[in-house]
């Protein structure tokens, strides 16, 4: 039986009818049409379906839609604001951190969760943050570089802001 599910999706309230056995991934993609979140394995192994729930990166394929009742869910579509890409997205472009792009949304979400918690991560911490995001194209080097560059850029921005104050 379908029941109403209420949560916040990319900053906006969302109410949707959903079955108990619906995964968050299928809800986002097939019911809500946000296909930026990708399906790669459906067994919580590839990370292409990574979204953020209340600030934490999780595999949406291993999450029931019902679990996000009252939660804030952020997908890749919720990153760019007012037509502006986030520094992380821009660095992914500049550093050539993707090829086919299929793992990219999940990768960016994992990277965002890391930088939100830890704005100045070591390379090891970056690699740990994306250990659950399999990329079949890049060998990860440029992804790590993009995340490092984002951290540096954000630190610079923060320092500049401080300076202004």
């Amino acid at each position, binding site marked *: 039986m379908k029941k109403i599910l209420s949560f916040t999706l990319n900053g906006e309230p969302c109410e949707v009818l959903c079955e108990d056995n619906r995964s968050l991934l299928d809800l986002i993609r097939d019911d809500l049409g946000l296909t930026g979140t990708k399906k790669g394995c459906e067994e919580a192994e590839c990370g292409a379906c990574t979204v953020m729930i209340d600030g934490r990166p999780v595999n949406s394929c291993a999450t029931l839609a019902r679990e996000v009742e009252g939660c804030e869910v952020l997908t890749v579509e919720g990153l760019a604001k007012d037509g502006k890409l986030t520094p992380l997205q821009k660095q992914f472009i500049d550093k050539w951190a993707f090829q086919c792009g299929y793992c990219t949304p999940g990768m960016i979400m994992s990277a965002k969760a890391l930088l939100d918690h830890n704005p100045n991560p070591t390379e090891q911490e970056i690699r740990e943050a994306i250990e659950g995001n399999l990329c*079949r194209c890049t060998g990860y080097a440029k992804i790590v570089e993009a995340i490092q560059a984002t951290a540096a850029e954000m630190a610079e921005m923060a320092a500049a802001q401080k300076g202004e104050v």
Partner: protein
Amino acid sequence: MNKFADKEYFRKPEDFRLISSTESKYTHVDAYEKVTGKAKYAGDFMAPNMLTAKVLHSPISRGRILSIDTSKAEALPGVKGVLTGKDFPIRITEDIEILCQGQVRMVGDPVVAVCAISEEIAEQALELIDVQYEEMPGVYDPWESIKDGAPDVQGYGYDNHNIGPTCHQQGSNDGKDIDEEFEKAAYVQHEDFKTHRIQHAPIEPHATFAEYDPEKDEWTVHQSTTMSFGDQFWLAHGFQKDVSHFHIIRPYVGGAFGSKSNWPYSEFIACEFARRTLRPVRFVQTREEEFQTMHGRHPFQIHIDTAFAEDGTILAKKADQIMDGGAYGVSHSQYAAVNLSVIWCAFPYKIDAIDFRSRRILTNTAEGGAMRGYTACQVQFAHDVNMQLAAERMGIDPIEFRKRSAMEPGYHSPAGLIVTSCSFKETLDDAAKFMRWEERKDKMGNGEGIGFAGTAFVSGTAAPVLNTPNQVQTNATVRVDLHGVVSLYSNCHDNGQGADTVMTAIVAEELGLNMNEVKLIQPSTFDSGYDSGAYGSRVTFLGGNAVRRAAVDAKRQILEVIGAKWGCEPHLLDIIDHNIICRDMGKTDLKMSWAEAVYATMLTHGGDEVVGVGSYYHRTNNAQYQGKPSNYAPSYVFSTGACHLFVDQETGQIDIDEFFFAHDCGRALNKRAVEAQLEGSIYSGLGYAVYEELKINDKGRMMNPNFRDYRMITALDMPHITTKFDYAPDPEGPFGAKECGEGTTAPIAPAVANAIHNATGLMIHELPLDPEHIWRLLKEQGLQKDHK
């Protein structure tokens, strides 16, 4: 413009603005869409009344289908159709049935298809289908398979003893006799090697979104493909229609690595359901289906005999290679497997007398197929480790040893291969230098090792797959509208490697425009010209040459008009930064804007738009398939991989400290992209060398068709990588470019194997080099403490 275009109009290297720029002046044309989630892949297409298709697969490796009862499934509310083998009476590529018709030949063979209003109902329907089989003994080892009395793998009644395509190539330069060469050799080496089964496993599974228009009798198919004209051709064949009925659209493709140059059963099934129901049908393959049915890398068994002269140069080589082809592939598409695996034996060394044979054997296991470096990873692993062992036994430094026989520009191999640009020796030197080999080679402790491997690959496979006039592989069109806006119609298949970006850059470079002023028309089989696909490392070289010619054809038309106005030779004009400029002495101050020049050209031509056409081919014949010499590709690339590692002598686990890769890809069109391809190649090669293996049990069942137990490298496992790729431009490649990113996977496994050998003294003849394998070798052979 065709291959023999008037090259006078080509942009000169000193004028390059985008190509090979040291800064990252141009980025992916699809960047915004890919970082925002807007990029649509085939499985992202949906429609409100869409149906979902699913397939029931064979649980056994060989058997007869006694009965199929689909009545319960058909009665399930929401089910809109059921298909079995009898609905697809036509075989694809000779031996492939869309749904099995009476016999199954491997676990995972598709048997029944359903479509329903939801994925859930489709899956429930599968559970209601009852298929009865009579199980028959299967054969899972190629040597067993070719024995007298072995089960007939396919059961079609072919009199082939389970032996599929075979390629046997013998030849020599300067009338040399191979037996005599072996007789006069200072050292003859006999070695055997074995490689394992792996899978491409792109993160995006194969997906089809099919719609049907009954008025036009026309299908529109969004397909995750790297060979859309192949899809079109085989769908047409499957439905017994001509190709005009199939509009194949290639959306973004989430990685392929060879797996999407096929025509999966899923697209036929989706198309048939779309026709029957008049509703859009989506079929996204599951990860298990990907592993079981999307033909991964062939396992090989290789025997090599090599004759060396006193100084270590190779006099002659013989190789006998068999590959486990799995249950299918007796037809032409698999000739490439045997043919290429013979070519790799001839690379990257000068070998004047050769005798190479490859056979593809059928077994009741998952079909093998093209995967990134088609058969090169297996063959060149064996042949490079063979070189390493010989170097050591002959007491010659491994770098020096390889250099003594290394191919050079101008070498003609008895295999028919003609080497044009070649910087192989330079790549070897650079690798030795980077690893500080001379300084360190005698100073490493036990468990520490450095290994090198040298390999080569084709740059632009000759075969266009389908018959085309003049064996043309790519037709491209560049259209300039009255405002000077340029549209590029190109089907060069982008699967993530950046083809769309590089083709756009080529046009922008030739026409002196910015990237965003060149509009790439999202490709489909009806929107733009023929391109045979992203396989055989042909896109940049062959496609790039075709696109460049289309751009230059448009450019020539404009320069001819402006040249006439200015009274000077048109080829002395060029377009730099949106301006036509003149290099005719005394007229160098002449200048006209791009928009003005385009308008003037149209005016001169009675208002006709400027349209440039380009095509390119590398012509060979099928001689190679019969084992006769033939120059397979217009150019070849050469690589050296080098690895510094430590071996844990208790566990067998390796720790790679540093990986260096030198690749002769001519002139890099985009340095970031080339670097990224090389990093990806090392990732892919390391996965093959150490981590990934698809295991088949004694019933032919795949033991680990999932991401949990099929170990794909994580970000934590990748070593530090350094790359080098600034070598001589190729005379024929677009702007001097050659292949990058496919054959570059080949030197990784032998470099790792040679490094482990260097570290421990272990003799390595088999992949993968996972900890348990090394541990076993350490137990069997013992640590060769004094090996250094």
